[in-house]
């Protein structure tokens, strides 16, 4: 447990000293506009919107990881559990000032859930009242892509997807992350 609190402290410290802040509403409204525009562009095809958000996130993740490593100055994680902690307590803390809870590990330590108590991307948001968005759209899906992209750059192929979202009326916002494999000695694939 002590390593967890240590990780949390690193996150706190970074947030206080090394991070440039921007106005939260700017971020929220910008992201909201992007999603709303995508929904319009794809004519309410929410599956496609999810896919696009994930792709955008992936491209962000590929770049963000460099920044993350440079700023945080943390070393390689020994196992996937440590990675999960690092993502939740340092990564999310640094970029969004939130620390989702890591929980629901499978026995083989290859799958976990991130529970988001707060989600700055989804402030003010109400999903459109068309009877489908509540079942199809994952509003914050960009985060899945970010994780996938970032971890891929540090030799981890993962799968991330949301399984519940407060916006849809669920009790919690939960992202399921599972390790597919460690990538060894190969060039990263050039495109999705």
């Amino acid at each position: 447990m002590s390593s967890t609190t240590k990780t949390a402290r690193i996150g706190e410290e970074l947030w206080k000293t090394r991070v440039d802040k921007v106005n939260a509403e700017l971020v929220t409204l910008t992201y909201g506009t992007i999603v709303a525009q995508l929904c319009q562009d794809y004519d309410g095809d929410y599956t496609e919107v999810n896919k696009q958000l994930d792709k955008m996130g992936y491209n962000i993740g590929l770049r963000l990881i460099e920044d993350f490593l440079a700023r945080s100055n943390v070393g390689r994680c020994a196992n996937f559990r440590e990675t999960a902690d690092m993502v939740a307590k340092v990564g999310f803390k640094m970029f969004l000032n939130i620390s989702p809870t890591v929980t629901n590990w499978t026995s083989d330590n290859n799958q976990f859930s991130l529970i988001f108590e707060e989600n700055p991307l989804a402030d003010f948001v109400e999903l459109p009242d068309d009877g489908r968005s509540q079942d199809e759209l994952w509003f914050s899906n960009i985060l899945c892509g970010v994780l996938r992209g970032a971890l891929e750059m540090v030799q981890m192929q993962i799968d991330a997807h949301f399984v519940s979202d407060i916006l849809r009326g669920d009790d919690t916002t939960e992202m399921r992350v599972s390790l597919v494999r460690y990538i060894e000695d190969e060039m990263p694939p050039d495109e999705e």
Partner: protein
Amino acid sequence: MTAKIACIAVIGKADNPLHISLFPPYTDSTIEFNFLLNSCLDIFDIHQKQTAISQDLGLLHAVDERLAAYGWLTTTGVKFLVVVDLMGQQVPIGAEKSKGAGAAMSGLRDGNLKPAFHALQTAYIQLLQNPFYSPDDHLPLVKNAAVPTSTSQEITNKKFINEVKRIGESWAPGMVAV
């Protein structure tokens, strides 16, 4: 005898109704209140022409012994109107006479409605910040537009409507915040 909100209206920049809520016992008086609100909009117009008006327009129009209309104008031209029933609804009709309406009238000061307007404005801001709410959809159609679209211009967002309802039901004179 406490005053009570009878009607809350949110009116767009072009005097198009965005949302109108009626409260008991006036829930069926749609037409009467539409007339009343329309006449209030004229008063807004007059105020707007004068220079240097503040957001809180205060009492616009004392309609009769019971009803009085108060207005709030944002800089973007969105108008909030609250019609107050000075008698409240619980008072039996016979009991009014002994007290006299004048007392009730003077009992309500302009500042009393400020919390209600603030709460309304907050609710409206919340609505606007939702990325899926598009203010453009609520502009009145151009007169010569081919076919009127089926989408109503009024706000349909449930959360907003419920919040307006809550404000209307819970407001009472002397409240600091609604």
